[in-house]
């Protein structure tokens, strides 16, 4: 391929007139031709919806009310939102979900990644196998896996607990356990992301650093906290941030596994937005909820970045 264009082209160019698809444009033109389609797609299909939703949040737009002029209502939607206890419940649920899921994934991810880094034989096998959950649709996971395994009467999880002498857990009828079940399903699926990210980070640490520390008499514990961790922090922060953002967006497993129930115990913000905006047709209120979620995500993401930066500054 390379030889074809490096050797043949100049000869052809000298002996024959240019074939018409070999038209030449200056790079200045090329860069725009290459970049613009992506820019147009992103602006039209991502940026405009974002702005439209912002606009909708300040109006009384409704999906099923056609022909009636839309009017601006100012901050009315947000005012309703802040005084809506059922919405606050969904915010609380989402934050609890995130606070449960992200640390659990960090612990599993760190533990497994360290073990994976420690071994040599079979590493490729484990790495490939750990990729599996990321390929599976969350709907399949929650359906078949969640609904079947956690079934209260004859699910394997409860049967195992009874076998150990415990009582079966009311996974679907008890508010707390329903949330725990969602967290377990999410940890099952997304710990792999943490594992792969941290694994990539660990592979980037030169082994002679640990050897040198070993020679100097450092324990494995010291070596981990003084060498591994500081070098791992940038990736750790990125991975955690991605997981935090994703945890705030959670909706599919909730919708399929518990439908937000029992009662409203596991309803997340995105599920609430779907219910008011799409099902209920209240576009304006749904939009204000969506922007509120965005604000919460920014606050938590920003706080996390700020804290990790401060923690970093202190350790240096």
């Amino acid at each position, binding site marked *: 391929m390379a030889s074809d264009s490096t050797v043949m082209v100049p000869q052809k160019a000298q002996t024959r007139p240019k074939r018409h698809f070999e038209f030449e444009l200056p790079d200045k033109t090329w860069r725009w031709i290459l970049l613009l389609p992506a820019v147009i797609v992103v602006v039209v299909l991502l940026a405009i919806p974002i702005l439209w939703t912002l606009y909708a949040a300040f109006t009384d737009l409704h999906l099923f009310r056609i022909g009636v002029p839309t009017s601006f209502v100012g901050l009315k939607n947000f005012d309703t939102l802040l005084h809506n206890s059922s919405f606050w419940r969904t915010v609380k649920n989402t934050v609890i979900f995130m606070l449960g899921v992200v640390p659990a994934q960090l612990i599993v991810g760190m533990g497994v990644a360290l073990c994976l880094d420690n071994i040599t034989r079979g590493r490729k096998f484990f790495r490939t196998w750990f990729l599996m959950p990321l390929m599976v649709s969350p709907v399949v996971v929650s359906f078949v896996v969640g609904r079947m395994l956690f079934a209260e009467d004859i699910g394997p999880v409860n049967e195992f607990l009874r076998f150990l002498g415990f009582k079966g857990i009311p996974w679907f009828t008890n508010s707390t356990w329903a949330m725990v079940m969602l967290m377990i399903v999410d940890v099952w699926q997304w710990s792999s992301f943490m594992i792969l990210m941290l694994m990539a*980070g660990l592979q980037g640490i030169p082994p002679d650093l640990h050897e040198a520390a070993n020679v100097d008499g450092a324990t494995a514990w010291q070596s981990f906290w003084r060498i591994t961790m500081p070098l791992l922090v940038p990736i750790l922060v990125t991975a955690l941030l991605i997981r935090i953002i994703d945890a705030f967006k959670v909706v599919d497993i909730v919708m399929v596994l518990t439908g937000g129930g029992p009662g409203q115990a596991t309803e997340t913000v995105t599920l609430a937005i779907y219910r008011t905006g799409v099902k209920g047709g209240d576009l304006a209120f749904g939009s204000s909820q969506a922007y509120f979620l965005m604000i919460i995500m920014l606050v938590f993401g920003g706080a996390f970045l700020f804290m990790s930066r401060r923690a970093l500054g202190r350790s240096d």
Partner: protein
Amino acid sequence: MGIKARKRLSLTISYIVLGLWSLILFFPIYWVVITSFKSQVDFAVKSRYLPFIDFQPTLNAWRYLFVERLNWFMTPFMNSLIVAFISSIIALVIGSMAGYALARFKFGRHNNSIVLGFMSQRMFPGALFILAFLVMFRELHLLDTRTALVIVYASGAVPFVVWVMRDFFETLPVEIEESAMIDGASRLRIIFRIAMPLAAPGLVAVFVLCLIGAWNEYLVALTLSFREAITIPLFMQMQVSTTGYTEWWNMSAIALVSVVPVMIAGMLLEKYITGGLTFGALKG
């Protein structure tokens, strides 16, 4: 304890942890597989764990899926397949072009800001888009069509493709392209004959990741499709919510048909996929 003994101990613990986590990941898959060979009687009183010992496996679910109700399942399957492939191809073409431009050309000093602009779109929660999409595609009379899903999935994947491919093109040596240019090759020729073939591993990884994303997507499909253009995740959900009583053996067979191709593709391309997943993040 000597160094050797300690080394052996830490290896043993490592393998135990890895084995345990592998088992946790494996059991649900095993459960789906055996459930697809069960029939209604196997759901009475207690769970059955081992085929041939606990229960007599039957092919009922598979016969039901592939012989009796093939058409019923084929619609969502083909929808998912078409939507995933076309949207991923579009995203790949548009995104890698922009990725190339951002890696090789200067846009003033704004290259990084442009990439950041692309990436910032991914920060926004999906819930922020579905309402706008609902109204937009209603106005365009595209609700419940595969076209709508293709448009949404392709545009949603473009920022990711730009991000990863830009990094990927930057790791490729620019010298090859420069020498081709001195030899008189046009820019188009350089892109298609040199840059794209060299970037093939990255392109494959990104393509498969887009494919998986579109194949598994749920919220947008739920919002925009309801009868004609339903995808597999939607189809599965409908089977349960409408009946209340669920034929788990049939559901398991459907789940396997929808999951296994993606799973195998992903695991065969493990090296590239892991690279694609972690590549952008490592640089950021």
